């Protein structure tokens, strides 16, 4: 009998809990969780990647190598709206050239727009599993992602105002609950207890705190390791950090309709990938009276680079400062801290004179 398959997906923020859930509960296959992202991951990825490819490619490649080293024999790679569609093909080739033997499930090849085809592609990892069961797991994982995004949003909006230091503990407990979840009941229970625990913490939040909206490319903005924990750093300064860009808002909930039409004043055509969404989110933050915006992007990310002039116009029209940050495989956060501190100081001084 063939040994049971051990499937893995590269690390992507904390979303691996939901991906693991689909593989384990839906396809009844063992899921290998790559180690948390680290300098070692980036080194591995950068050494084996083309130099000018964007950083998420290098990070995910490094994570795949770590997964293979940890014993995975099947790698699953997702697809997306930009170069991400070609990531899988290139990464598979690089890994094979490095001498690894494995099966590769490249979802980009099945990207027909029909959810059924994605399920059919995933069926490769366990041909005997029931499609009904897989569909159910997919639905439940989507619930998990929604809870994860809600909890994360709640966490970064409030953790800067919790002097007791209980917030990080609750959040970490919630994350580990999600990784351990085996059923929809587990997921709901974990979410409920996190919500209750959050509600029990007394926050010392001023009536009108500094609010910063974060926008950026699909991977870097959602992955704390890749953006050097920018949300935590800002929150620690006493900022309410908001991020609309997450899987829930972008894929699961129908969300805002006709974004392109709503931002016509700033940009008439779609510039690909997350560009339209980002501009709309920036406009949304500005209209809600936020104090500042931070754009988080990977070096060599074309759509995010293209929207910079648009953000500059938006910044002028709404009189909202924008901090543009570009991330490469850097390990030192001193330069980032200088810019964030200065940005915070500026917003604080501005707020004092313009209520």
């Amino acid at each position, binding site marked *: 009998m063939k040994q049971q398959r051990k499937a893995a997906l590269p690390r992507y923020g904390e979303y691996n809990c939901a991906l693991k859930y689909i593989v384990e509960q839906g396809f009844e296959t063992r899921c290998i969780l790559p*180690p948390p992202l680290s*300098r*070692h*991951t980036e080194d591995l990825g950068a050494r084996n990647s083309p130099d000018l490819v964007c950083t998420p490619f290098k990070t995910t490649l490094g994570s795949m190598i770590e997964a293979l080293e940890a014993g995975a024999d099947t790698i699953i790679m997702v697809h997306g709206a930009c170069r991400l569609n070609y990531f899988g093909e290139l990464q598979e080739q690089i890994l094979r050239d490095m001498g690894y033997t494995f099966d590769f499930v490249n979802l980009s090849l099945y990207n027909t727009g029909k959810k059924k085809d994605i399920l059919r592609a995933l069926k490769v990892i366990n041909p005997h599993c029931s499609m009904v069961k897989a569909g159910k797991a997919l639905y439940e994982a989507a619930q998990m992602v929604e809870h994860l995004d809600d909890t994360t949003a709640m966490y970064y909006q409030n953790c800067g105002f919790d002097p007791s230091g209980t917030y990080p503990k609750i959040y970490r407990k919630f994350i580990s609950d999600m990784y351990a979840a085996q059923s929809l009941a587990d997921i709901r229970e974990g979410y409920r207890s996190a919500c209750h625990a959050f509600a029990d913490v007394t926050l010392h939040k001023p009536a009108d705190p500094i609010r910063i909206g974060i926008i950026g490319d699909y991977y870097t903005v959602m992955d704390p390791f890749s953006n050097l924990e920018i949300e935590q750093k800002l929150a620690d300064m006493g900022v309410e950090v908001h991020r609309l860009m997450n899987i829930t808002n972008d894929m699961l909930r129908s969300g805002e309709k006709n974004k392109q039409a709503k931002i016509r004043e700033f940009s008439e055509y779609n510039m690909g990938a997350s560009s339209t969404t980002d501009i709309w989110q920036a406009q949304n933050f500005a209209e809600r009276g936020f104090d500042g915006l931070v754009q988080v992007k990977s070096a060599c990310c074309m759509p995010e680079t293209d929207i910079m002039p648009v953000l500059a116009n938006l910044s002028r029209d709404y009189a909202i*400062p924008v901090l543009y940050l570009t991330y490469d495989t850097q390990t030192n956060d001193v330069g980032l801290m200088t810019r964030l501190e200065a940005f915070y100081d500026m917003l604080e001084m501005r707020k004092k004179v313009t209520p």
Partner: protein
Amino acid sequence: MNTGNAFLGIDVGSISTKAVIIDEGNAILAQEYIWTEGNPIGAVKKLLGLLEKQLDRETWQIVGVGATGSARRLVGSIVGATVVKNEITAHAVGTTTFHPDVRTILEIGGQDSKIILVENGIAVDYAMNTLCAAGTGAFLSSQARRLGIEVEEMGQYALQSAHPTMIAARCTVFAESDLVHKIQMGHPREDIIAGVCRAVASNYINNVGKGKKICSPVVFQGGVSKNIGVVRAFEDLLRCPVIVDENGHLMGAMGAAILARRSLKRTHFDFSVENMEFVTRERNCGGCSNNCEIICVYRNGTLIDFWGNRCEKGALRADKA
């Protein structure tokens, strides 16, 4: 004896180290400007020695110390600073105190350059160069060396030129090869120098100042503001007068001193730091795969501060060190 409160501000940059001592009314009591020469601790000690001679210690007592610049953390822990602030905020505070009506602050230092937009005396937007040192003081220094002149003389040469040479300013590497090419083609030296100055100014406006509305009055500071050639180039490109304060190079230190004055924290600073021995040591934490590089600072053999660790694991290790 009547002792007045004085405030010390130290700005340790990559190239130069600046310090001022001011009184409650922002009047300068002592000031000094020396080269960092890759040794921030040594530079600060030397600087404090020079300041001590200038200050009338009978009359003034330093009660607040502010540190800024890229070595602010290190220097802050050595001198026991009451305020440690990033250089962007320090420059904005310093400049708006002396030029309350300023709208735009251009700043070009040794390794970095920044623009700060000001409205009603408050910084409202800023930008800083990223990833690349093109168009900074380091570029000017290396080109001066290539042309065989001192970087301080560049401005005077540039003023003699009537037809500045066009030099590609996008990137230091391309600018340099373009410059070599133009020299070998036979362009006169003063035109080349004027071209380099213009390249610095246009690079700045196209990169750091991209998308920013530059309004007059414009104040230009940082080491490069001492180069009259670059000042003229900015005036040509911006079509407005560019103010260069004679204390422009001290604005970061001034800002740090003013922030120390505004903060409520007080200390009793004497110049004993000069005679203490400071050692820094780098340790790799090794607690996890991040392998954080932790910098430990020792004063006369005892650990006084450390940083670089991302989690508490590193903190424990530094204590044991």
